[in-house]
């Protein structure tokens, strides 16, 4: 019985570690995506033409579209296709 309790505790600790590691990895990926999104938006604010574009940075892919009025819909997507970050804003149209 004592061994069973001990085994459950060890499994619980290891599971917590795995979850913590996964959370930190996701935070790192989100942080990188945020930095890339800031850079792209900074570029778009200098003047952007309407259309859709996609750019890959390491394990993050940025996809954005701009309409004629300068409305931007930008998403950061990970390698599994999950959306990490989505931003809707407006930039001065070219």
């Amino acid at each position, binding site marked *: 019985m004592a061994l069973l309790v*001990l085994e459950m505790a060890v499994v619980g*600790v290891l599971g917590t570690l795995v979850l*913590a*590691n996964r959370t930190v990895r996701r935070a*790192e990926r989100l*942080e990188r995506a945020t930095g890339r999104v*800031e*850079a792209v938006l*900074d570029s778009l604010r*200098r003047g952007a033409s309407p259309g859709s574009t996609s750019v890959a940075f390491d394990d993050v892919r940025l996809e954005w579209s701009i309409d004629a009025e300068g409305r931007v819909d930008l998403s950061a997507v990970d390698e599994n296709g999950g959306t990490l970050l989505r931003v809707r804003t407006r930039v001065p149209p070219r």
Partner: protein
Amino acid sequence: MMAVSRRSVRRGAARQCACAPPSSAQGTSLVEAVVALLLGLFLIHLGYSVILGLRTASETVSDRLDVLTASRITRSVLRREMARGTAGRDWVAADDSLRLRAFRGTAIVCSLGPLPSELVVAYEGDRRPEPAKDSVEVVGADGSLLYVDLIGAGPTSTTCNGADSTEVVMAWRIDGPILDDVLVVRLFESGSYHFARSALRYRVGAGGRQPLTPEVWRDSETGFLIGDSAVGVQLMPRTTVGRPVSEFLAWDPP
């Protein structure tokens, strides 16, 4: 004599049987003790291993979080400071340092004050003006710029039409002539950011370098990336768990 002798032998045998278990039972007990001892040692070893592993994992996660925090602070602080100025005129980046006019607020000029070199302004900014370390950029109606020291800032009874609730009406005295057509005054302090001793540090004027981030960077591989049209930063974590990060900071028009 013989009968007495047999009885005493039987009694002795009986006493012997009552005091000591059979020889096979003695061997089983010893094996159990050894097994119990080994099992106990194994459990202690397992416990220590788990504790050590937890400690290592905890330190690793903590290091990674420090790197994340330092990266976020570095990016947000530098991008904001550089966005408030113009490349070449207000800031210059080198390998591991950024010298700049760090703008801290903007004031709309309401009127000229009663004293020479005094302006009544409606001010809004990150902090209140500090004449001991602040200077101002005076912007004229034609876009001309003048940089002078701020020598006094205080309350005034003069009203300012158009000032809203987020602005503070103040009287500023500057160390220089006042343009007749002055429109806006921007408050700044001269400072510099440095990557030194594993952290991003800020220095106001000739003061000491104050750390803004945890000390997580490898100095030899961390610094500004000066490109043809943009300025970025490369951040290399000191620990082995982190990956190098390159971040865009600002456009640097030629």
